[in-house]
């Protein structure tokens, strides 16, 4: 226990300042009122759905929850069920084998809700594209508010995408 406490004290706080919202990532006109977003912005529950990724984007979502980025300090928390979620964070091209599960997860998420598509595959279908096995980009299956490109997008870009979705459009 002594060594554990010593290690904690020695490490200190490594968390860095959070990025700001980036309007360039927005795909849909903001559908939620500023008041709702104000609430969302203070405490946001996210359900992650891997709809067929290569698992690269998952690595960066994990990293966003790590100490350098510390997503939870912004009031943003990953939850275990879509029924508890305000936002779906969707990775991958949507495989046809995940199409139904993704639609059901979307339906199970209470209104009002936001969807952020993560990664080149989520944005465009990426290298896997559309095929007998892949529906391509997430927006081909459910409505997407914000899409974050990158293969995989680094944690700051993911956080930026989330913050963009919960900030009222300034346009």
């Amino acid at each position: 226990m002594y060594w554990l406490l010593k290690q904690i004290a020695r490490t200190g706080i490594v968390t860095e300042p959070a990025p700001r919202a980036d309007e360039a990532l927005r795909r849909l006109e903001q559908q939620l009122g500023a008041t709702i977003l104000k609430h969302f912005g203070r405490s946001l529950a996210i359900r992650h759905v891997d709809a067929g990724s290569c698992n690269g984007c998952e690595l960066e979502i994990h990293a966003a929850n790590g100490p350098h980025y510390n997503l939870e300090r912004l009031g943003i928390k990953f939850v275990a069920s879509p029924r508890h979620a305000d936002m779906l964070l969707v990775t991958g091209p949507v495989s046809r084998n995940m199409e139904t599960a993704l639609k059901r997860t979307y339906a199970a998420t209470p209104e009002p809700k936001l969807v952020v598509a993560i990664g080149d595959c989520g944005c465009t279908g990426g290298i896997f594209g559309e095929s007998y096995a892949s529906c391509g980009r997430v927006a081909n299956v459910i409505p997407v508010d914000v899409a974050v490109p990158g293969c995989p997008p680094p944690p700051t870009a993911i956080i930026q995408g989330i913050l963009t979705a919960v900030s009222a459009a300034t346009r």
Partner: protein
Amino acid sequence: MGPAMNQLPLQGRPIAGAMPAFHAAVEAGELRGLCQQARTQQARLVALWGSDETVRGGGYALHLALALPAGLLWLSVPLAREHPSYPGIADIYPCADRMQRAARDLVGMLAQGDSDQRKWLRHGAWPGDVFPLRKEFDIASSCPPVDDHYPFVKVEGEGVHEIPVGPVHAGTIEPGHFRFSIVGEKILRLEQRLGYTHKGIEKRFETMTLEEGAKLAGRVSGDSTVAYAWAWAMAVEGATGTEPASRSLALRGILLELERIANHLGDLGYLGNDVALSFGFFQFWRLKEDLLRLNAELFGHRYLMDLVVPGGVARDLPRGEAERLLARLESIEREVATLKSIYDEHAGAQDRFIMTGQVLPELAEKMGLTGFAGRASGVNHDLRADFPIPPWQQLPVRVASHIRGDVAARVAVRFDEVSESMRLVRALVHLLPPGEVRVPLVACPGGRRGVGWVEGWRGEVLIALETAEAGRIHRAHPHDSSWQNWPLLERAVMGNIVHDFPLINKSFNLSYSGQDL
């Protein structure tokens, strides 16, 4: 006749490339006898897949890759154009079961015998009489959805109930379905259903050139991108007869070990988290992040994607940066040593780790457990040590191993592998020969074979490649060690409590995407 076959009655031809590999064609009637003989000689089944040979004047073909002491033996079994079938081998090699079912779903070849005949990678996206990896099937076709019925094995008895989990899981992980049969808190049986991330990777390869394929290979399983890209490069270099630059081989070694360190660090953190030691998560993910940032600074990508390419590597270690790499690794290594002693002496963590999710060596050997999980259960294979090709030739790899096969053993092996990888990176940096890092690919006719076989952080990665005319791909089969290890996870959880499942699962950390393709 190659030395690989000296104990099997075969005429094999060497396959050119970095790894020792041989090819032989055998008739379906000889298959079971050969497999039985191979099994008694401790040969491992690495992969099983199918191909459509109708465009090359044949019917279909079944392919097997066996690991023998002298190298990889690639067996091809020609099958008829009408109703292709072959005698199944899942009773000889249990890990063949799911691979046989996948070959049926994708190519339409039937394994005869009393093995499991349920579909595997096919869900509702295409009907049972359509086979996407047949040449006549267009990748862009979209079949109307069909009913996706899958008969799970039912466990019955007083107090037995089921917990269905997934495909959308509670954590940030890939999708799959787990059907637990439970009595009280205890797991009687776990049945997995995978294939949710099937996105047509093998079919996609057939629309690409050999060079383009590198990028897709690096995305079969994102966490193993270096291992796959290297296996792809090795297969292409073998098939085309390209000799990669020797400096690039040492750089590939460095990249592969950095990938191993990063993944082990991340999982060691999650293993702490799963036993309520969130201290471990934050500490290890701090170190992992330090390493990822170093990767980005030195090589331009946090996960080292698209760096290994056919012919060499896309980017050299910047001049004068070797010292920075070594200094950062040294500071990570020091911290890992501190964390290891904290884990080792933490009674709560050890209580959860020890004797949880055990796979005994006998079962591991029988079922073909591989990679670091295999080494934690006494199955001591490591391609870097078994076939020390460059850069391992000058640098013998010390294989980490354990025999208890529980979560604690997998944790111990991961800690050992982190320090061994640190040693290897240091040695490789000092061995780094001067010169260029990439050579152009030699043009390649159709009908050539190439084998890429690399010990990734999770286990061995195989790329079996057959070329088509004009530098294109006739068939490429990427194989992840997760095919072998998923069924052992079903066995590892038996008799454990449901709440230990996430811990046991994370201790293996298998790839869904790498298996679903």
